[in-house]
């Protein structure tokens, strides 16, 4: 992957943020984002991911620790001097300016020459398919077009860092899929370090080179998406990443009481006569067309979810045989909830 000339890496060391004495939004955060990397911050609402992003942008003060861009500590550097471009959840387009002026704004603020601004804006607009909308105001654009303008405004000036705060959450499902791919392509092409905040499973799993999972202001795990999925650091990550979430129950592992987990796709239908098969009763079925989520009740276990082939036919109340791939079991400590190897 080519890394942009202007792009830099980011180091976060022991960063803390309090809103009040009893509201500790980010706790002792340690994280390194490599130059050119696409990092995803993911976690439930209120986990501190947006706060962390805003601290990186300079929109929130840092109460403890340091944030470094490249070698430079930026804790006290005002936002305008950080050379960071950010895409906001609600786009934050300037409503009184047309698309052209929205995109030209960062360049005007940097005192670019008029011709250079024109060249750059038309180039980026053409890239994003916005040429015909340049004269329109944001109010006259659809959600997808607004999102593109917001991206365009971030892209025009080749920043050192891209920040994106749930940029796709206001778009409809189809558009979201398209934009997801576009953003990934764009990031690859530009090679600029990007931090992307989301609470969406699919975005987290498919877009980034690494994902950082957060909960209650604490970093839970940072790793490649596949690793986080297959080897979650703890029970929270195991249940948060993956949809539908991992099945868990209290069990035993090497003679030790622990929590056992298995992903829905590792539970498969089996012939009831199969000696290893478990008998279960179907309590509900959700067929997405591509696959069937079968909700099951089995004796001695809490409710289970099985991700079966769409062709698998069964109805509520029916008894079925299932098989769990024991190789895929994950075990977690009951106290610490950390994964046991």
């Amino acid at each position, binding site marked *: 992957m080519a890394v942009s000339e202007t792009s830099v890496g980011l180091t976060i060391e022991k960063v803390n943020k309090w809103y009040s004495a009893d509201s500790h939004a980010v706790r002792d955060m340690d994280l390194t984002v490599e130059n050119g990397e696409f990092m995803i911050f993911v976690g439930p609402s209120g986990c501190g991911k947006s706060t962390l992003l805003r601290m990186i942008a300079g*929109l929130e003060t840092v109460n403890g620790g340091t944030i470094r861009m490249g070698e430079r500590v930026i804790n006290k550097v005002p*936002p305008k001097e950080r050379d960071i*471009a950010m895409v906001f959840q*609600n786009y934050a387009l*300037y409503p009184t300016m047309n698309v052209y002026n929205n995109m030209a*704004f*960062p360049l005007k*603020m940097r005192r670019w020459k008029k011709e250079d601004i024109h060249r750059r804006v038309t180039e980026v607009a053409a890239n994003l398919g916005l040429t015909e909308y340049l004269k329109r105001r944001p109010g006259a654009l659809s959600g997808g077009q607004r999102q593109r303008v917001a991206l365009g*405004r971030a892209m025009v000036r080749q920043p050192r860092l891209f920040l994106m705060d749930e940029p796709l959450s206001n778009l409809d499902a189809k558009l979201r899929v398209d934009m997801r791919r576009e953003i990934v392509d764009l990031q690859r092409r530009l090679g600029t370090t990007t931090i992307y905040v989301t609470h969406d499973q699919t975005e987290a799993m498919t877009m980034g080179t690494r994902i950082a999972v957060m909960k209650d202001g604490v970093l839970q795990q940072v790793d490649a998406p596949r690793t986080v999925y297959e080897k979650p650091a703890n029970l929270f990550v195991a249940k948060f990443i993956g949809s539908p979430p991992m099945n868990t129950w209290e069990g035993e592992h090497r003679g030790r009481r622990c929590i056992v987990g298995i992903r829905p796709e590792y539970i498969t239908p089996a012939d009831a006569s199969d000696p290893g098969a478990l008998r279960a009763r179907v309590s509900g079925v959700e067929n997405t067309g591509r696959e069937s989520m079968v909700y099951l009740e089995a004796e001695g276990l809490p409710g289970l979810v099985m991700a079966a082939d769409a062709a698998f036919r069964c109805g509520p109340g029916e008894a079925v045989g299932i098989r769990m791939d024991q190789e895929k079991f994950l075990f977690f400590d009951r106290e610490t909830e950390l994964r046991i190897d």
Partner: protein
Amino acid sequence: MKMRKWLIGMLLAFIAFFVWVPLWLLISGSLMGAEEMTQNLAPVLGNTEGTAVWPLLPMYPTLKPYIELLLDTPQFFAMFWNSCRQVFPVVIGQVLIGAPAAWAFARFHFRGKKILYSLYIVLMLMPFQVTMVSSYLVLDNLGLMNSVWAIILPGAVSTFPVFLMVRFFTSIPSALTEAAALDGAGPLQIFFHIGLPLGAPGILSAVVLGFLEYWNALEQPLTFLQDKTLWPLSLYLPTVTADNAGVSLVASVIMLVPALLIFLFGQRYLEAGISASGMKD
């Protein structure tokens, strides 16, 4: 349903009628000749018996009172000019001083902000009569009494426009100013590029309300201006004597015109301003 609508319409029309009648009488009266007017009002002004009448339309409509006022009364023009040179600087000052002040209240966190803002509101709620004596003393000490500055300076730093604009500026989403800061804009540039264009309705409603207030002001010029050559138009009407009632009606009509124009031009902002301030004047 239709009946109800009709009834409500009638009721509103009935109420509107009472608002419009004085205005109608004013306009029709301004087109009345001096003789006709004297005759109509004789029982009130003179010593004749009977009741005064005011016809809906003048019997002999004439533009004579207009000609008399506009062509033969230089005093009227002097006062019109006085009004302009007092009201426009007040309004301009309110924007130049009020808008940045309001932006600071709406967007910045600084020590003493709450106290200062409360002080603004307290001052705003005080009627002119309460602050009149202290204003008089300050202006007197500054040597500004009996000059247009006695009207302009207190007006320009008036607190109401600030309060009004704060309401508008606070409603600008913070994401916009944050986006601008990340796009490389400093605090001043954010104010000029984001605050002013987006707060324009608030600024305009402050302009409209400020203009109307000072165009119609009576107490300030009466208190602070002893020299009658400095008096604004709002003080012209009380100087008109009964025998010159026709001219006074014309003066009223002409006095109404700028306010009416401002109102027509700024009605949208005026409504927004009134609803934002949660009060009416």
